[in-house]
């Protein structure tokens, strides 16, 4: 049969960010997908040479438009390890609270976009309506909805007052209730299942071999979550990686849905264990010569920062590997064999964050 080449992206209604796939199709069935990246490269890593290591926090926050907090935490933790700074316990827990709020709103955003990808517009609006409460919490406690800018090397620069904590607990109770009300729809509705069950299957072996990360990996049955390393305040919290075994789009969306509820629970645990004390340790001098490799769990998966200090206030090298970068090879393995109409759903199922990937 003759092969037709269909370009997918860089501009496509389901894609919030530009990625291009060249799809080779035979009669509506995708045979091969070839990706092209590089539409939003910003050269953020290079900025480490002209901005000092404190100012780089604000740069790292802007690597991703959704999980600014976790990028900043990863970067700060790497510098703190290099400079041997002890972060106060309260700061560690506050970082967990904001990180988990970010994970919640990132997953809710994705669940909405995913519903949008298979054409369930009203479900999309419901998820985004719920998400707004989390954005309000971010705005009221840190001063900004997305780019929260609360990290400094050595701790955080914002605090939660007892009234704010009470308000947050009330808000996340409502969020949990509203999210649970949508559980049946996203997991069991037959229109949703028709578009997600058995679509874009990634086997456990392939997921591991191709280096998938985050919910894509856990949706295929591999229980790997970087938070289990116990960095920051996570060592004191009680949780298990969320795992589904079917490896299809349904499994990935279920993992994210359950992680949303898990994150809400982690916010509660972190608030319950929030110790009194300092917000930030004093940091003096410049990062010494040396290298640090830091891994954290982002909403999309494992995020890696490599930092090389040279004794000055600038860094020799900052290398960021984001989860979407790791999830592109698995995506290319999922696409062959699927219907052309399922391509948007499969692409969205890895939660692509392209500006993250290209930095």
């Amino acid at each position, binding site marked *: 049969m003759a092969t037709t080449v269909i370009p997918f992206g860089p501009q496509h209604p389901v894609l919030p960010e530009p990625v291009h796939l060249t799809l080779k199709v035979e009669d509506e069935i995708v045979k091969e997908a070839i990706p092209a990246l590089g539409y939003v490269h910003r050269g953020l890593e290079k900025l480490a040479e002209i901005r000092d290591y404190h100012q*780089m926090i604000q740069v790292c926050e802007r690597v991703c438009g959704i999980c600014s907090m976790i990028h900043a935490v990863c970067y700060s933790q790497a510098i703190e390890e290099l400079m041997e700074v002890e972060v106060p316990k309260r700061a560690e827990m506050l970082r967990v609270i904001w990180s988990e709020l970010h994970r919640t709103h990132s997953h809710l955003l994705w669940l909405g976009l995913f519903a949008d990808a298979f054409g369930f517009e*009203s479900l999309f609006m419901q998820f985004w309506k719920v998400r707004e409460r989390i954005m309000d919490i971010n705005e009221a406690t840190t001063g900004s909805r997305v780019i929260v*800018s609360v990290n400094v090397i050595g701790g955080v620069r914002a605090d939660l007052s007892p009234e704010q904590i009470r308000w947050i607990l009330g808000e996340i109770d409502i969020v949990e209730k509203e999210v649970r009300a949508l559980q049946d729809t996203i997991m069991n509705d037959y229109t949703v299942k028709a578009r997600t069950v058995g679509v874009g299957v990634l086997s456990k072996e392939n997921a591991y071999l191709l280096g998938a990360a985050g919910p894509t990996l856990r949706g295929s049955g591999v229980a790997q979550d970087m938070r289990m390393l116990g960095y920051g305040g996570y060592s004191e919290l009680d949780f298990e990686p969320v795992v589904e075994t079917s490896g299809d789009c349904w499994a990935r969306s279920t993992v994210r849905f359950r992680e949303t509820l898990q994150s809400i629970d982690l916010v509660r645990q972190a608030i319950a264990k929030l110790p009194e004390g300092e917000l930030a340790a004093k940091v003096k001098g410049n990062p010494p010569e040396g290298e640090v490799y830091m891994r954290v769990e982002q909403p999309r998966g494992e995020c890696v920062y490599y930092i090389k200090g040279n004794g000055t206030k600038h860094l020799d090298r900052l290398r960021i590997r984001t989860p979407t970068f790791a999830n592109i090879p698995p995506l290319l393995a999922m696409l062959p064999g699927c219907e052309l109409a399922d391509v948007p759903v499969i692409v969205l199922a890895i939660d692509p964050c392209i500006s993250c990937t290209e930095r």
Partner: protein
Amino acid sequence: MLFTPTVIKNLLKKPATRLYPFTVREPFPNYRGELYIDIDACIFCGTCARKCPSQCIEVDKEQGLWSCDPHACVYCGICRDTCPTKCLHMKDVHRKPMTERIMMVEKGEPPKPKKKAAEAAPKAEAEPKADDADKGESKKADAKKK
């Protein structure tokens, strides 16, 4: 079918959105909005210019000029937090959209020279740092050219 209860609930509730711009939400008090300076309290120490991650502030001690490019500002609030005299503030609403590029330039009284002489030591310390900031600027310009 499983979505029906949500649909019915939504039908009976009032709208979830506001009629913006006719109804505007109350801003949160801590919001990092438009940056402004109380120039009379500024001592032109240049701390804000050195700390700013986007390098959008310039301080001219001799002439008593403080300028900021609001289009490059990322509203992180670091200048506000590090200013020794607390003369930088942020409004709780964002800046209104503009039709042309502007530069915020404020002119104040530069510190008196005789006071400078008395504080010779801190001044000597402040100057090389200001040079650093300049270097950062020129490097940035170089990078842009490349």
